[in-house]
């Protein structure tokens, strides 16, 4: 996925000189995770910028650049370090379009490597995505495959609205897959890019017995769980990769839940008022009559993400997903 993100950045930067990338340690070294590797050489120090250590400064100046017509891509080094930039995101990025009659949206992308599973110290494993979805005015997305990562990143950059781009760092390198140079949409215009590449959920696996909704690093785990369910008990789970967390693809969600009659939501973030709560409510509100069981949730617990020796206890495991699925299936 790292290479795919890098490819996307290179492709869009080559075509559109409004795109600049900025953040801590992203130019000279190519970033802690090497997502921006090589960009400095290719596009120069004016467009690939190492900043001082200050997240509000990074997000805030990206907003100012966008006001001047640039398309800045800001990197936050790790999930929990977005909080010092939170105010800029909430009070400005999210409201600039609204505050300017739609004329000057904050056309920024904030890239955030997120989540646990990389054996990192405290505060390198947060999943803050639900916070952003609760803030009106932002788009929040998270890819789970290299192809999606590239396409969604390019689309997020071209999309005029502020996009919080959540990168599941746990699967940065584990999920590989060739990404063709070809993009599925023209890189020169932002017309309809939202509909083409941001708005829609993806069916990652077909099945009619249970709909499993998830995104980011838990997608492959849900695929494994689905495979196990199929092998062990002949249950065919449909796995839906949400991709866009705000707005949710409500029609795809309810259609899958209706078709299967049973549904489960899986994510790594805490449960309380998380994406799972929204997906669950949405399904019940719209298609409860089609359900044979209440929608289940397998999520992180409502505790700080633990020190890493215990993070596998915290992260939704294939076992827990299977158990959650069984509970829904046997209700």
């Amino acid at each position, binding site marked *: 996925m790292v290479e795919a993100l890098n490819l996307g950045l290179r492709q869009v930067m080559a075509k559109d000189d409004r795109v600049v990338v900025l953040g801590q340690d992203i130019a000279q070294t190519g970033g802690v995770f090497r997502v921006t590797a090589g960009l400095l050489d290719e596009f120069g120090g004016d467009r690939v910028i190492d900043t001082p250590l200050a997240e*509000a400064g990074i997000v805030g100046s990206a907003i100012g650049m966008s006001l001047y017509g640039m398309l800045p891509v800001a990197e936050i080094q790790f999930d929990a370090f977005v909080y010092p930039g939170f105010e800029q995101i909430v009070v400005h990025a999210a409201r600039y379009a609204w505050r300017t009659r739609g004329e000057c949206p904050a056309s920024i992308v904030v890239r955030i490597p997120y989540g646990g599973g990389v054996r990192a110290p405290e505060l390198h494993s947060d999943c803050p995505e639900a916070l952003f979805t609760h803030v009106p005015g932002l788009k929040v997305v998270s890819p789970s495959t290299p192809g999606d990562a590239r396409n969604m990143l390019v689309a997020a950059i071209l*999309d005029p609205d502020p996009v919080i781009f959540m990168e599941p760092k746990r699967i940065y390198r584990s999920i590989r897959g060739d990404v063709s140079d070809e993009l599925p949409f023209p890189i020169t215009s932002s017309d309809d890019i939202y509909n083409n590449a941001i708005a829609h959920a993806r069916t990652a696996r077909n099945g009619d017995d249970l709909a499993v909704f998830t995104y980011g690093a838990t997608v492959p785990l849900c695929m494994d769980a689905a495979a196990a369910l199929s092998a062990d008990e002949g249950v065919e789970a449909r796995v839906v990769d949400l991709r866009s967390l705000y*707005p949710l693809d409500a029609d795809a969600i309810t259609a899958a839940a209706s078709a299967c009659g049973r549904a489960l939501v899986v994510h790594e973030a805490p449960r309380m008022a998380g994406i799972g709560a929204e997906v669950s409510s949405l399904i019940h509100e719209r298609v409860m009559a089609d359900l044979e069981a209440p929608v289940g949730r397998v999520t992180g617990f409502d505790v700080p993400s633990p020190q890493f020796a215990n993070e596998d206890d915290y992260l939704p495991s294939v076992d827990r997903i299977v158990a959650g699925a069984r509970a829904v299936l046997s209700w």
Partner: protein
Amino acid sequence: MTAEVLYVIGDGAGVPDNDVPEGLSNKDLVALYRRLVLLRTFDERAVALQRQGRIGTYALYWGEEGTQAGPLYACDDRDWLFPSYRQNAIGVLRGVAPSTVLAWWRGYGGRHGFWNPREHRTAPICVPIATHLPHAVGLAWAAKIRREPVASIAWFGDGATSEGDWHEAMNFASVFKVATVFFCVNNQWAISTPFSKQTATETISEKAAAYAMPGVRVDGFDPLACYAATSQALERGRNGGGPTLIEAFCYRLGAHGTADDPKLYRDESEAQRWRTLEPVNRMASYLLRLGVLDDDDLQSIGAEAKKTIAQAVHEMEAIAQPGREILFDHVYASGRPWSFDEGLAELQGTDRPPAVKPLAPQPGPSTGDAEAPAGT
């Protein structure tokens, strides 16, 4: 007023006038005066409108007109302005309709209360303290990347210097040597907090040292001093010299906002003493002394401003309260979330509450009568 404060306009008595800043013709002086009067007229009228319940809580800037019109006069048309709530009407000097600004205070959104920043190179009114400063930096930085000689100027108060965003913006600006003017209106109060409790330094301008940035301190009641300092700062900025911190030292002559009662926390006789220094009359006396204007001119400039603002009030009041659909307008520039249509349908299924009167919330058993807040 302490010695190190730069000024141009004397008091017509013991304090002598200094030279008119370079580059300002008599015509410029008159134009600048006209702007001061327009701002003053707007402000006074807005306060009256608030008293009459025709707009909501309003953050008056009475006495700070020179800190706005002065620096602005030094700007190119292509330079960008980043006002706080205190410089709420500065866009008017850039062609924003004054009725739009009044409508903002009346609680109108969308095209009624906002403008297109690109059209006027004027950012929206910024409410959360100091958060617009990184934007000013980012904008000038973008211009620098594009090799375009565009600068930015951001206004903020003494209190704003305590916020982290102020510091981060100052640091970014100096590291990347962008052409941003940090214009601090040190009116010595942040709501009820006096300058002495806001920071331990004696001045704001000395804080520039922490960023290897030039810092200057000017008389904030002197429009020409504000002009001159800004003009130098912009020139330096455009020549690659980086940002400048300007402290316009003055005094908040009025309340923090129309809901604030300064008697709770300060001795109003102090304000009275500072009041004699306010910029509009001071500039007028100066122009009279220079012989650039006479009393008739002053009169007609005043009358003209009154007319403009009266017309603006008229226009503002002609705006119908926006419809409910406005809630969902322009939240996104691309793609309308499905929930917006659902929300609108939900609203349309219920009776609309009576139109909002700015300061007369609907009384009733359960919606409130909380007093209008003092903060803006």
